[in-house]
């Protein structure tokens, strides 16, 4: 049990404290820990975790931490995952804010952030690609993706609407069939 809690804690410390660019930049790192390193969940379950997190308001990273922490170790898991996500950088912000403010305009810091940004973009794109490879199990999945992409591009409808209507669509179209028919074949 202690080993599990420690793993959850360390996984979120690592994920959160190397994600430059806020919550979204942390998502690929959480995936690297939860899916690739510790095998707590597969790509599809990770997508489900993101679906839950995106359906609710507030910061993404803490919602992902709560979901994964709870699945692994109940409420204690939630607490350690949240502490790992929030506390280390917060302490740095509070204790070193004066120093950071002085250097937040420095060319060195800007140079480092400039070089890390393309990497973050690649990591996030890679996450989308890997999840897509595993979760586009039917032709209709591609249809849903295409419609969503088109609506995001051409309109300014709020993402929560896409999540709600895709769930409704899934309920009506996939949900009524017999269980054996909707078992995903992972491709």
């Amino acid at each position, binding site marked *: 049990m202690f080993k599990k809690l420690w793993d959850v804690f360390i996984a979120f410390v690592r994920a959160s404290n190397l994600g430059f660019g806020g919550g979204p930049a942390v998502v690929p790192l959480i995936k690297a820990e939860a899916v690739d390193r510790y095998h707590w969940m597969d790509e599809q379950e990770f997508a*489900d975790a993101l679906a839950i997190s995106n359906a609710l308001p507030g910061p993404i990273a803490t919602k992902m931490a709560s979901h994964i922490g709870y699945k692994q170790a109940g409420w204690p898991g939630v607490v350690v995952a949240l502490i790992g996500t929030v506390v280390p950088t917060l302490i740095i912000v509070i204790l070193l804010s004066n120093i950071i403010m002085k250097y937040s305009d420095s060319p060195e810091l800007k140079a480092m952030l400039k070089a890390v940004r393309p990497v973050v973009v690649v990591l996030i794109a890679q996450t989308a690609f890997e999840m897509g490879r595993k979760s586009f199990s039917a032709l209709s999945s591609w249809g849903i993706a295409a419609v969503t992409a088109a609506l995001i591009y051409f309109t300014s409808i709020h993402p929560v609407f896409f999540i709600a209507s895709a769930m409704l669509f899934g309920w009506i179209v996939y949900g009524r069939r017999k269980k054996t028919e909707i078992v995903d074949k992972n491709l």
Partner: protein
Amino acid sequence: MFIQLWDLLIAFARASNFGFGGGPAVIPLIKIEAVERYQWMTDAQFADALAVVNVLPGPIATKLAGYIGYQIAGWSGSLSALIGTILPTVIAVIFLTAFLIKYSDSPILKGMLKGVRPVIVILIAQTAFDMGKDSFPNLTTWGIALVALVTLNWFKLHPALLIVISMAFGFLVFR
């Protein structure tokens, strides 16, 4: 003192729980509470706070909450603002997670999740696209992206390592 802690709790609970779309959606709402409603700080002070938290890794909203809370009422203020930011959604997430575990065999739930997964993939891809818009100012940044892609897929380099290496590279080359 108590009233201040209560104000912090409520301000951040309100800001965080009406912002859909993660941290970035929450920032303008925090500004409304901290600068306009409670006048804890000026516009310029808020901009400074934002600059500080943007430099550091991790989720933006919780860093901002902890920092502003600390400025107003010390460590207890920091805790108060943090609880307001994360507690309501954490409880909601756990409620949904428990529901998901309990009904994981239900064909309806499976169908709903199958329907929503492609949307999540597109939303994540969209995030990458949006961030990408101003992340590639020159050819070197494209080179960094290419190297990242190759090392990630063929050499299975851990993303964290990639981040550290790219920052060191930036420090040496872009300065």
